[in-house]
């Protein structure tokens, strides 16, 4: 039987850096997931407050309901980033698949951001639908600012996963 030669120091270093980058990506994804969970709770609270203060008018948007759709989308993104969802692709050592999931969820966060931005725009400029919801607008604006960070973190390039965009 031929004796197996020990891995070269270069190979060891590559392997170690792959593990480090893998752990780093997992930590960043986990951070985004935790953030999304807390944001969805805050949005739900703001939706309730907007419901109390905003005036309901036929043919005008119900901004509390709009918040609830964003909350639903955030929860869906949080679920897609659950460790078990990512585990299936990680076990196959398929970084491209993980990158694709992150990129897709990043796009979904952009959609949520835009919807929150539209809600804030209406809260800021139209008192006929928003009532006096300045506090709620500020809370949602703070979430937008934090969402921007999550959007950056989920970029496969930032996570050092294979780029999936062509």
């Amino acid at each position: 039987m031929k004796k197996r030669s020990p891995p070269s120091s270069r190979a060891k270093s590559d392997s170690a850096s792959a593990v480090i980058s893998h752990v780093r990506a997992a930590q960043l994804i986990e951070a985004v997931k935790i953030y999304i969970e807390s944001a969805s709770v805050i949005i739900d609270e703001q939706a309730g407050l907007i419901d109390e203060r905003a005036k309901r008018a036929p043919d005008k948007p119900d901004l509390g309901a709009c918040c609830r759709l964003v909350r639903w989308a955030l929860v869906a993104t949080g679920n897609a980033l659950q460790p078990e969802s990512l585990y299936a692709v990680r076990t196959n050592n398929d970084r491209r698949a993980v990158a694709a999931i992150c990129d897709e969820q990043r796009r979904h966060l952009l959609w949520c951001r835009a919807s929150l931005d539209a809600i804030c725009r209406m809260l800021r400029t139209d008192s006929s639908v928003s009532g006096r919801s300045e506090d709620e607008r500020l809370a949602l604006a703070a979430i937008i600012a934090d969402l921007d960070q999550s959007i950056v973190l989920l970029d496969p390039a930032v996570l050092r996963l294979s780029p999936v965009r062509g």
Partner: protein
Amino acid sequence: MMQDPTTEMASLDALIASEIIEDCRAHVASITELADITARALRECYEYEDDEPQLWQCCGVVRQLLMQVHATLEPLGIVSQETDPHALAMRIEKTCEEQRRMLRPAVHVVRAGIYIVENFEPNHNDQVVPALRDLEKGISMVIDGLGMVIQGVLTQKQRVIAG
């Protein structure tokens, strides 16, 4: 072998419910496409400033929800002779009510888009608002359609109890 008339009626109604659900799914698929086209129009027709909401991306959330509703309704459209009509009725009622509850906020997101375009965009494109209105109506029609399915299921239940 003679079939129990109650079971026969229930399975027949299950088939009708399944057809209506398939109609709803087809409608959801077509308005998902409309959401996609509207998003593209909103993207191409306007240049968004940094402080303006990217309305085309709002359609993305609506589209995401519609795709989920489409997928969730799929198993309800599949019935067979072995399907327990009572269990199926319960499942249809519960699922359809959940989907209706989820779809209602989508109407308001589209309505917010219309409101912003009409009120804050003085030179709005003539085609965008009608497309958004069609999307709003389309989602409302799905909500009504699912309501009809629930109503049908409830009527069926009452008939079975009375019979």
